[in-house]
Every structure is written in structure tokens, then in C-alpha cells.
């Protein structure tokens, strides 16, 4: 067989020989020219190869970059939510709450013996009733302000504005201003909405001295110290419309507060907060009804100064600082009020105006223990001191009982999720002299909508 390859080689060699012979035949100038051309060609190719290499390197680097991303599922950027007219709607949260109460004493004649009635207080209605349901609408207004409204729907088909405020966000240097209607920053419990209370009702001391909770129409400024330990100072000036103040037609402020809170962690398991607050109001013609020494229901009115000190502390324990499984919370507050001024006895009929001075105090201590997820038990004990009350010449007309109102409560609650809670509370309320009220409450608290963050 004739092999093709040796044949091709032979032909090639022959051609080369002919060609070289040809070149040799040409003159040296021609040779130089060819040499130059080859050199040029070579340089040209080298430059092109170099540029190709650079491009390849770039592509590799790009691919590596893309790899970081592509090794994730897809590299498409996250698409935002669809826009619409309602996409700027504020966070809306609705808290639904209802109670069943079994009370051994008639709540209609609830009072705290030895204390001036402070408004709408007491254990509420017997039987089934709606507890306070709340509708809250909150949002950032713009980069500088945050605001919101909280409506409270009461069992008797009335609604009230619990909060309607605007506040600065991210003002520099730890400053925050708040204006409108808000829960005053005094004490520990005062700022908390009813749905986060650990018991069905607020402590006796809050009921006696603050009419359950101090809401204020006014202006608040808070300053947070630039320290690793939490230190917050605050002051408020406001209308002073609610107890212990009284609404009136007056320019300027009717109430002012100052408060300081400190707090921090102890190790990883414990945290605490303690505070001291002072509320100053000057009620004018603050009217109330009371049973006098003769047994008649009379209307009195107080005008003067009222000053309330509150010392509060809360201590929380959670293993590893993780409250999800179990945790314990101990809190207590001490309230002390001094009032002096004039008291008009029988203000509607035949007023007897006399000097008035009182110094009264009260405290509560409570512990709440979550022993397994979802389940908590709580114990609260509280006591008021009747203290010293001096009606001046009206000492003959008005009772000054020497009585110490007390109350003990125990509760257990079950929270299937962080949005729902069912609670049973038993209490013995001895705020009325000679009439211990045995109370049983069943309560549900459910929150719908926006996932509200809770304060400490």
C-alpha cells in the first residue's frame, strides 16, 4: 500500500528546498525587508495576544465576582413590594380583651377607705364584660418624626383617646421630644398599656394616687446619657387634666414631672431598671363625693398643691439572658403623696372651707415567673397607708379612718403565642374597711395586626 504521509512530507521538503534556494537567490535587501515584515507581524500578534490575555483575566475576575453571587440561588436583585396607594399605611394594631369577673362585693360602691376617690377605679363590672380594647395606629411620619394614636374602647360603649402624640426620632445626642397626649414617663407601670400588664388590674397605689394611670396632654423631653449604663432623665409639662390634677381654664401648665431612670445588666442572666419620679400638680376645685361623718353623701372640692414621689424598680432574670423558655420578673413601686391647700366641704349646698393637708403612701411588689414556655404564674401583694389627713375645722365633719387597705392577687396565664394570652386571677381586695372582696377574673388578651415591640 502506498502511504500518504511520507509522500506529503517528501513533497513538502522538496518545496522547501526549492523555496530556500529561491530565497538564497534573492538579494540581501529583499531578505531584510521580509525579515522586518515578519518582525512586525510578530510584534503585532504579541500585542494582540497580550490584550486578549488582559480581557481574559478581566472576564475571570468578573466571573469570580459573579460566582460569589451565583453560588446563591439566583442573582436577581430582591424585588420590592408592589407599590400602591396604601403602601404607606401605618402599622395598625388592635388589641381585643374581655373579662369574666366574679366579685363578692358590689363594685358600684367600690372605694379605697381613707383615700380621696381618684376617678374611674375599681375591679370593673360583675359577669361578662369587654375589658379595654385598644386600636393603635403608629408610623414614622417623616425622617424626623414618629407619631401615633391609641384609642381605647371601654365596656360601656365609650371610646377615649389614650395616646395621640408625635415624637422626634433620631434627634442627636440622646434627646427625644414628645408632644400631644401620652402616658407620663413617671414610675414603671405608668407608661405601659393595659394589654401588657401582668395582672388584670393596676395596683391599688396606682388607682389611689394616679386614678389608675397618668395620661398627660403636654410636652415631654427625655435625655439619654452617653454612658454604657442606662441613665435617662426626663421632664414633662402638661395640662394636668386628670387626677391628681384637675382640668381648668388656664394658660400655662397645670402639671409637671421630672423623672430619672437607670438600668443595666448584671452578668448575662440579669437585668434591672430603677427610677425616681416626681409629679407636681395644682388642682383647682377638684371635686369628689364621699360619705361624711353623719353618713350623708356629700360633695367636696380641693384646691391646692399635690406632689407625688414614685420610686420604682424592676429586676428580670432569664437563664442565659434568653427569656423564651423561662424567666422571672420582680417589680415593685413605692408612691408617696403630699397635698396641702383648702378643702370646701359640702361645696354645692353650704360650703365650709378649711385648710387641708395629707401625706399618704402605698406600695406593691409583684413577681411573675414563666416556668415553662407559654405558662406564667404571678403573685402580687400591696398595701396603702392611710397616713395623716388633716381637714382643719372640717375634722368634725369628715371621717379620718385609721385603716390600712391591702390586697393580694395571684394569677396564672397561658399564652399560646406571643399574640394571645388567657389569664385567671384570684384576688382578695381589702381596700374597703370591713368588706373584703374576693375576686375571680378570667381574661383574654389578643393582639391583631402589626407586631408591636414592647418596652422593657
Amino acid at each position, binding site marked *: 500500500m502506498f502511504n500518504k504521509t511520507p509522500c506529503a512530507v517528501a513533497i513538502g521538503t522538496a518545496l522547501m528546498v526549492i523555496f530556500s534556494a529561491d530565497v538564497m537567490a534573492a538579494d540581501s535587501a529583499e531578505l531584510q525587508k521580509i525579515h522586518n515584515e515578519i518582525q512586525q507581524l510578530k510584534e503585532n500578534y504579541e500585542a494582540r495576544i497580550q490584550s486578549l490575555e488582559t480581557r481574559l483575566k478581566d472576564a475571570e475576575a468578573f466571573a469570580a465576582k459573579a460566582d*460569589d*453571587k451565583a453560588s*446563591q*440561588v439566583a442573582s436577581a436583585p*430582591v424585588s420590592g413590594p408592589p407599590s400602591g396607594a396604601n403602601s404607606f399605611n401605618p402599622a395598625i394594631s388592635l388589641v381585643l380583651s374581655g373579662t369574666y369577673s366574679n366579685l363578692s362585693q358590689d363594685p358600684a360602691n367600690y372605694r379605697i377607705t381613707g383615700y380621696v376617690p381618684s376617678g374611674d377605679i375599681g375591679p370593673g363590672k360583675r359577669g361578662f364584660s369587654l375589658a379595654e380594647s385598644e386600636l393603635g395606629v403608629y408610623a414614622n411620619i417623616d*425622617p424626623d418624626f*414618629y407619631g401615633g394614636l391609641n384609642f381605647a374602647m371601654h365596656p360601656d360603649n365609650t371610646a377615649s383617646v389614650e395616646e395621640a402624640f408625635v*415624637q422626634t*426620632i*433620631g*434627634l*442627636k*445626642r*440622646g*434627646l*427625644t421630644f414628645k408632644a400631644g397626649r401620652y402616658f407620663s414617663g413617671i414610675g414603671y407601670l405608668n407608661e405601659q398599656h393595659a394589654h401588657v400588664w401582668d395582672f388584670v388590674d393596676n395596683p391599688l397605689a396606682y388607682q389611689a394616687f394616679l386614678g389608675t394611670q397618668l395620661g398627660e396632654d403636654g410636652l415631654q*423631653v*427625655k*435625655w*439619654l*446619657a*452617653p*454612658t*454604657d*449604663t*442606662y*441613665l*435617662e*432623665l*426626663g*421632664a414633662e*409639662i402638661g395640662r394636668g387634666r386628670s387626677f391628681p390634677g384637675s382640668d381648668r381654664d388656664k394658660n400655662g401648665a397645670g402639671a*409637671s414631672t421630672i423623672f430619672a*431612670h*437607670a*438600668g*443595666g*445588666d448584671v452578668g*448575662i442572666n440579669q*437585668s*434591672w*431598671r430603677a427610677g425616681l419620679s*416626681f409629679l407636681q400638680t395644682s388642682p383647682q376645685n377638684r371635686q369628689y363625693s364621699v360619705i361624711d361623718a353623719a353618713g350623708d353623701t356629700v360633695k367636696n372640692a380641693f384646691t391646692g398643691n399635690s*406632689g407625688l414621689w414614685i420610686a420604682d424598680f424592676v429586676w428580670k432574670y432569664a437563664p*442565659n*439572658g*434568653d*427569656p*423564651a423558655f423561662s424567666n422571672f420578673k420582680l417589680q415593685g413601686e413605692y408612691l408617696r403623696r403630699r397635698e396641702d391647700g383648702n378643702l370646701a366641704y359640702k361645696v354645692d349646698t353650704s360650703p365650709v372651707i378649711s385648710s387641708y393637708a395629707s401625706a399618704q403612701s402605698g406600695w406593691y411588689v409583684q413577681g411573675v415567673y414563666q416556668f415553662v*414556655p*407559654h405558662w406564667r404564674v404571678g403573685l402580687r401583694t400591696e398595701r396603702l397607708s392611710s397616713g395623716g389627713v388633716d381637714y382643719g375645722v372640717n375634722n368634725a365633719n369628715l371621717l379620718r379612718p385609721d385603716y390600712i387597705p391591702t390586697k393580694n392577687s395571684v394569677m396564672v396565664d397561658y399564652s399560646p*403565642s*406571643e*399574640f394571645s394570652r388567657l389569664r385567671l386571677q384570684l384576688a382578695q381586695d381589702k381596700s374597703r374597711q370591713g368588706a373584703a372582696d374576693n375576686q375571680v377574673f378570667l381574661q383574654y388578651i389578643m393582639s*391583631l395586626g402589626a*407586631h408591636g*415591640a*414592647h*418596652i*422593657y
Partner: protein
Amino acid sequence: MKNSVLIAFSIMFLGLAQGASAALNVFACEPEWGALVQELGGDKVSIYTATTAMQDPHRIQARPSLIARARSADLLVCTGSELEIGWLPILLRQSGNDAIQPGKAGYFEAANYVQMLEKPTRLDRAEGDVHPGGNPHIQTDPRNILLVANALLPRLTQIDHNNAAYYEARHKAFADRWKSALQRWEKEAVPLKGLPIIVQHKGFPYMENWLGLKEVAALEPKPGVEPTSSHLAEVLSQVQSQKVAVIIRAAYNDGRASDWLAERAKIHALALPFTVGGSEKATDLFGLYEDTIQRLLSAIK
């Protein structure tokens, strides 16, 4: 009273005269971001990490100590995707610190820079604790760490441009080390591909995606809802039919449900570090993934 108010105000304004400290104050919501900022920031940053690996990041309380630290932060680095919705908004509102408000350079959400998984198609609380933006536990995939590092670098240089070159150099060094570590981990983790697993909380979709693990079931019937005995019984029957090798949980999860199941099904229950500090070996980001892979490998030996 008027005097005391005046005194209070003067104390406040005295406080305003306070100067800022030298190092960049960084508030990290979770340990992994604290560790990452440490890698990029070196000794130019002072980091406060708000939570530990033993704490459920969903259930943190807005403690006074956290508010105090948010007050002095120059940069806040958090996961986002509503992981911190139960506590971070309070810190931001009470901090009186404009540098770390959303929209500012000092507010950094890591979840914005990675591809989110498990975006819910149905937003309803009946589905449990779902996050509208997707599953927030992005740190279980180390590739996400690099993406977040790349996004974090410009923030650091923007806030502290005097040290820009320093951050860039550290970022480059970190990225190089990270890429080679990634290759190593992926090689080591090859035997894990296709491994059927059960998770306690749906906290590992990114890790599953990275290593090719197959999630068969979750002990929590719905995200954030504690395991119930009836649901556990259901999962037990699934284990038997689908040859599950291992039950995994995060260090902060209560181990009883997974131990119960592991004992009955005769399979391993593994506590993974989940984040930096979640195990003895997970002292930094490298240790976190090394230990995670070693623990997973130990289950299939």
C-alpha cells in the same frame, strides 16, 4: 419644682458637650455580624454585640443596657427581614441617636444584600412567626457572609473615611481567606450532599441550600410555635419512612423535643452553633462553619 426642672435641663445640656470617642462604635444585633465587623474593622472599631448565641434573636427584650449602647453607636449592623422587629424599633426610637436610624449610613441590614429564601406566599399569623421579607437566618450559609462583607465595606469607609484604606486592606485579606476556606469547607462537606435532616426551627434553609441537605420536617409545627406531642409523633413516623439521619437545632433551642425524637428514632440530635459563640470551637466566623461541618459529618460516620 421649677428649680428641679431647670436643674434637670441643665444636666441634659451639660451632657450635650460630651465628645465622641476615638474608635468607631458598632452595635451588632447578632454575634455573626459583630464577628464580621471585627474582621473588617480590626482595632479601629469598638463592637457591642447585643445578643449571644444562647439567645433566641426573635425574643430579645429592649433592655435598658441595649438602649444605652444604641445611644452611642455610630453604626448598627443587624440581620433585618424583621428578625429584630420585637425589640429593635424600641432601641431606635429611644436612643435619641440620628446616626443609626433607618435610611442613614449607620443603619445596616444584612438581609438586603443576599438572596432571601422562603419568602412567604401567604402572610397570615395563623402560619406562625413568618417573616414577610423571607427567612432571616441568612448566616447559616458562609457565602452570604462574603456578600454582607462586600456590602459592609463601603459603609465602614463612608462613616469612617479616615481609615478607608485600613478597612479595604482588611476586607481584601478577609475575602481571600474566606474564599479559600469556602473551598475547603465545600470539599469537606461533599459527603453531606442529599443528607435528609429534620430541623427544630426553620432556621437552616440557607445552610441546606449551600450543602445540599434535604429538610424532611421541622419539629416546630409552625415557625416560632413550640413542638407539640402530636406533631412530634407525626414527625417520628416521617423519620422512619424517609431514613432521616440527623435532627439539628440551634444552640439556643431547647433540646428536649429533639432529644426525645432522637431517642425514639435512634438517630443523632445535633446542636449546631448557629452563630459565633454557639459552641466552644465557634469562637469566630471561621470556627463557626468549621465546627458546623465537623458536627454534621460526625452524624453520618
